[in-house]
């Protein structure tokens, strides 16, 4: 699917869509509608998730899902306020996301609900609870 087709597919579930070019688009949604988008993508035979990125922007942690829609890449942003850092897992629909969600949990402290294997991935086992190295606060602290 090219960007326009992806845009029409997900249009009713997202707040805002920015088409960069034929093969790249950004969209913003929220976690209630996430599953609808995933199902819509799945119906259209989108199976590959390239990565999940977490960005700390101050008060909000943005979780960005990068879906490979052959050839367009859909970047789906889910902003999460810092006092409610919870997001449902997508591993039931995209099992390949299992590692990325573990990474997201330990690096940014986003709680992925229903994840089958919520252990640490990169950080050592004795890493203190509540310390998330890619958060803004942590950067201030470690300067």
């Amino acid at each position, binding site marked *: 699917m090219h960007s326009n087709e992806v845009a029409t597919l997900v249009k009713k579930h997202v707040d805002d869509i920015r088409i*960069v070019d034929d093969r790249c688009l950004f969209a913003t949604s929220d976690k209630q509608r996430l599953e609808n988008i995933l199902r819509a993508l799945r119906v259209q035979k989108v199976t590959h998730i390239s*990565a999940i990125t977490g960005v700390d922007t101050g008060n909000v942690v943005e979780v960005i899902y990068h879906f490979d829609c052959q050839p367009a890449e859909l970047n789906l942003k889910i902003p999460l306020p810092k006092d409610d850092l919870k997001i449902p897992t997508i591993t039931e629909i995209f099992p390949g996301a299992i590692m990325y969600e573990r990474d997201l949990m330990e*690096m940014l402290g986003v709680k992925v609900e229903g994840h089958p294997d919520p252990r640490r991935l*990169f950080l*050592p086992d004795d890493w*203190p609870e509540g310390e998330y190295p*890619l958060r803004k606060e942590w950067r201030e602290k470690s300067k």
Partner: protein
Amino acid sequence: MTFVVPIGPQHPALKEPEFFRFEVRGEEIVDVDIHLGYAHRGIEEAFSRRNYKHNIYLSERICGICNVVHSTTYCQAVEQLAGVEPPERAKYIRAIIMELERIHSHLLWLGIAAHQIGFNTLFMLAWRDREYVMDLREMISGGRVHSATNTIGGVRRDVKIEHVPTFLRGLEKLEQSTNYYINLFKSDRTILARCTNLGVLSKEDAIKFCTVGPTARASGLKTDIRRDDPYGAYDALSFDVAIERDGDVWAKGMVRLREILESIQIVRQALKEMPGGPIRIRVGLQIPPNETIERTEAPRGELLYYIRSNGTEIPERVRVRTPTYGNFASMKSMFVGGTIAEIPIVIWGIDPCFACNDRVTLVDSRTGKTRIASFDELRRWRK
């Protein structure tokens, strides 16, 4: 009754530190668990503490073997953020160096795979031929491994006209020996005995776990970013995507060997069709707030960079998703049901690059007691 066989963090089958915990019943593997993080260097965080120019060299240091593709992806992403297009000639030079890197990486894979199955002669021969590629890379970039060729807005070194004959001679030699290896791989009884029907990744599992690169292609999944989402000069270059159907170690090796041949063709074509003109343009490094993703096909598969800028010379966030990271989820389905003797070659079948993989966190000397000692030790040793 099951018992646990630890592989790693230091083990002769692994060339880099990583820990695999195999649960076995007799000789049969029933479960596998991977502990990552022994080579953490905190690169994603370090990216947002340096300016765009310095980050080129940081991105090259993520992985030694595929350094050019890292820096190319990074530079292309920053060029997209800045809204500039590098000159055509620069794109071709990037393509040439990236393909040379693919050849070198796949020959390195072949050598170590041969070593894992105890075939030391093939190991030595493959690495001898890899030396030809290294010489070519040294000739055009000035470094055997780290090419330091890419810069934002183009490349720093030109391919000179007097290099071309040497290039064609070297590629000729490589093509000969690659054909020899392909024939050897197809016919040698001991290689077939050790590589076929193990570590099988079915096409369904390859799709399910989002595998990338040669690992996916060996399972019959026709995916190649160079073809699916062409970047740089790949729009204009023609090549085939090598795929195999079996999904075992042999198929993974075969895909890589055939890709070497394709890469040789690409380099030849690029040398012939390379346009003249400048090789770099100046780019102002005050990049307005924006975000972008860039995907390329590294030797091991799809490489993804996500960069967000914030108007300063320093990026807000750089996310790197390396190919090995994408392939780890599929590892369980490759191992379960196999035997202990297969572990090294199956691990090596996906061509893992742990240094690529472990780069996300930041090592801080103030949190975590075990860290204090090791970090202080490092410091003392340095002085």
